[in-house]
């Protein structure tokens, strides 16, 4: 019985997401922006930067996946809209009347979003890497590090979507969630570069979600990273899941 209920909740959330045109626009944008920016970044690798493949210091896999830095903003918007729009229009009250189990509602939203984002993420990462292979004169080797970067990038997109969902649940407002989310994602890394203190730079690189999460994309020079690839992804996951639990608790305790 319980399983049937969860499936029904998931089905309801899936229908809500599926029938919104904005969802598909955002998913298409995720794929297109990741691929386009990856291609642009790969073609920026001129002979002026890299005279010969052996003298090249660039991490070509990471370069090809640069687009994730842009498309994660789209994923954040997708996550925030999935519940923020319900608060904005009042649908949340209908939803909660139909499905009083609030944790179940949130979990099914998260599941439906993860499903869609990971599908879009697979397409996005594959097309970015595929384009880079076509553009780069010496394509990066297909090895474990590359699979880690590719799989990790998909996970980054999923986790950022969940971050958007949890912030919007917590704030009950789309604009606030997006502003705060973009602040956490983008502004903190900028600050980590401009602060003139190596200690603080290192700390911010380690503990801010975006630089830590994106360290999964590194395939070269791993010793130079502020935080290891998987540990970095763990930091981002901790932010996303932690905020989801906080948001869920607030969701459970507050009136809609």
């Amino acid at each position, binding site marked *: 019985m319980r399983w049937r209920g969860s499936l029904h909740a998931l089905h309801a959330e899936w229908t809500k997401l599926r029938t919104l045109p904005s969802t598909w626009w955002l998913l298409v944008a995720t794929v297109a922006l990741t691929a386009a920016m990856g291609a642009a970044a790969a073609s920026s690798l001129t002979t002026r930067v890299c005279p010969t493949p052996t003298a090249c210091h660039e991490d070509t896999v990471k370069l090809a996946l640069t687009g994730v830095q842009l498309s994660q903003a789209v994923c954040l918007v997708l996550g925030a809209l999935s519940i923020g729009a319900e608060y904005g229009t009042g649908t949340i009250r209908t939803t909660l009347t139909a499905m009083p189990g609030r944790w179940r509602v949130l979990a099914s939203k998260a599941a439906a979003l993860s499903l869609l984002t990971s599908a879009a993420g697979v397409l996005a990462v594959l097309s970015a890497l595929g384009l880079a292979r076509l553009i780069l004169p010496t394509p990066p080797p297909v090895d474990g590090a590359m699979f880690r970067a590719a799989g990790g990038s998909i996970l980054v997109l999923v986790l950022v979507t969940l971050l958007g969902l949890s912030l919007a649940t917590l704030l009950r407002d789309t604009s606030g969630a997006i502003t705060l989310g*973009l602040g956490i994602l983008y502004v903190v*890394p900028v600050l980590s570069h*401009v602060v003139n203190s190596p200690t603080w730079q290192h700390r911010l690189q380690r503990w801010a979600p975006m630089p830590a999460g994106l360290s999964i994309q590194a395939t070269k*020079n791993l010793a130079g990273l502020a935080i290891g690839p998987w540990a970095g992804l763990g930091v981002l996951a901790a932010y996303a899941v932690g905020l989801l639990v906080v948001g869920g608790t607030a969701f459970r305790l507050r009136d809609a």
Partner: protein
Amino acid sequence: MTTPTKTVQPYRSALHPTRAGFGRLLRAEWTKFWTVRAWLLVLAVAAVVTVVISQMGASGSTTGGGPPVVVGPGGEVVNDSFRFTHRTLTGDGTITARVTGLKDASGKGLGPWTKAGIIVKSSLKQGSPYVAVMATPAHGVRMQWNFTHDTAGPSSDLAKAPQWLRLKRLGGKLTGYASVDGEKWTQLGEVGVGGMRGTVQVGLFLAAPVHEIVHRSFGGTSEVAGSGQATGTFDRLTFQGKSTAGGWTDTDIGAPTADGPNSQPGTTTVSPTGTYTLTGQGDIAPDENSPDTVQMSFQGVFMGLLFMVALGTLFVTTEYKRGLIRTTFTATPSRLKVLAAKTTVIAAITFTTGLLATAIGFTLAQKTLRSNGFKSPEFPDLSLLENPALRAVVGSAVLLSLVAVLALSLGVVLRNSAGTIATVVVLVILPQILSFALPLPVAQWLLRVTPAAAFAVQQGVTYYPQVQHNCLPESGCYPLSPYNGLAVLVAYAAAALLLAAWTVRRRDA
């Protein structure tokens, strides 16, 4: 027979008819803003966050006392070390020499701004006033004085033809000349430089600035020092004037410490035919490598900007969401006037708040920086009412208000807060993050063409064209000059405003 016609008086409002003046419209929009308590709160939070983060950024920045710095006549920090073959000159006089060659002495390549030429310098003290004419490998003949001034002369290729140089002192004026044959002379410039009265030092000089080759990748940036030593050859040296010394003396101005890593004392040799060969290192130029204490005081602006974007967006998108926009357009059918009033109100509010926040933030951050070891003369005291501090404070406030206008205009076009906020933040902030990681040419291109270029207005360091400098985004360098950078954002805001004006007239509300 005609039926009596009954005339019905149409309804007329009892109110006195007035045109909706722009002043009233402004007042209406201002009322819409200040009566929303959440927006006032966001505005206050924006100001506080800007100040607090600037303060945190400043307290995180420290400096250890480096080697003593040399300060030029204009009060700026300069490099002043070179090989000098000189004698004294009292009163008027002329020195002429021919530069016949310039080559690398370290085996790492010749820097583009390696200098060989003649100089008149008020004393042998580092940082003292000077006027020089010189030949360079990549930038032709130049006349430079007092570190920050530079005039281009004819282009020359020393490998093909030697270059004649002449400096003439007459009264308080110094005139530089260049020639290819020693007969037809081109005047490069005439300057009166303060502090050059009485006896001065004149002679041949050679300076070879260290030029850095950048290796940059996602893992980090490393700079590899290129050449730091060069050899220049001169002949046909003639000197006219009164000198207390009988011959030429050699000095390494600003000689590096004997045990330093790059301590290569300069040499001067004279052949019987009158060829002077000088080997030396160093540079005579402004120092651009010290941290920028102006820029370090504005880190909160990055965060304050987010709130301004949100305010600018919501100021119009909430009207669309709640349907208030229809009431607004019913009351004032001229849509462009409404747009103009909205823009004026949001720009004024964000500018005032931004100015308050950046002025307070800057003053507090400067205090903190001073106590963290950023002291004069290496880091000159900055007055809020003088450039570059004034430019950075007002410029940051303008930046904040332009970003709000950009958000408002895009909000009119997109009529949706989520999309607008995300687009504007991505446009303004993401280029910065990408510029830290992408290859240098692309990174610099991004910081030229995206609204992120506007952050150049916070720069306090002047980048002189006569100094080779690798403009690295991660060290806070923006490729555009402060005002040009801000102009890029102005262009974006103006374009968005035009687009908004076009759509708001064409579409139904």
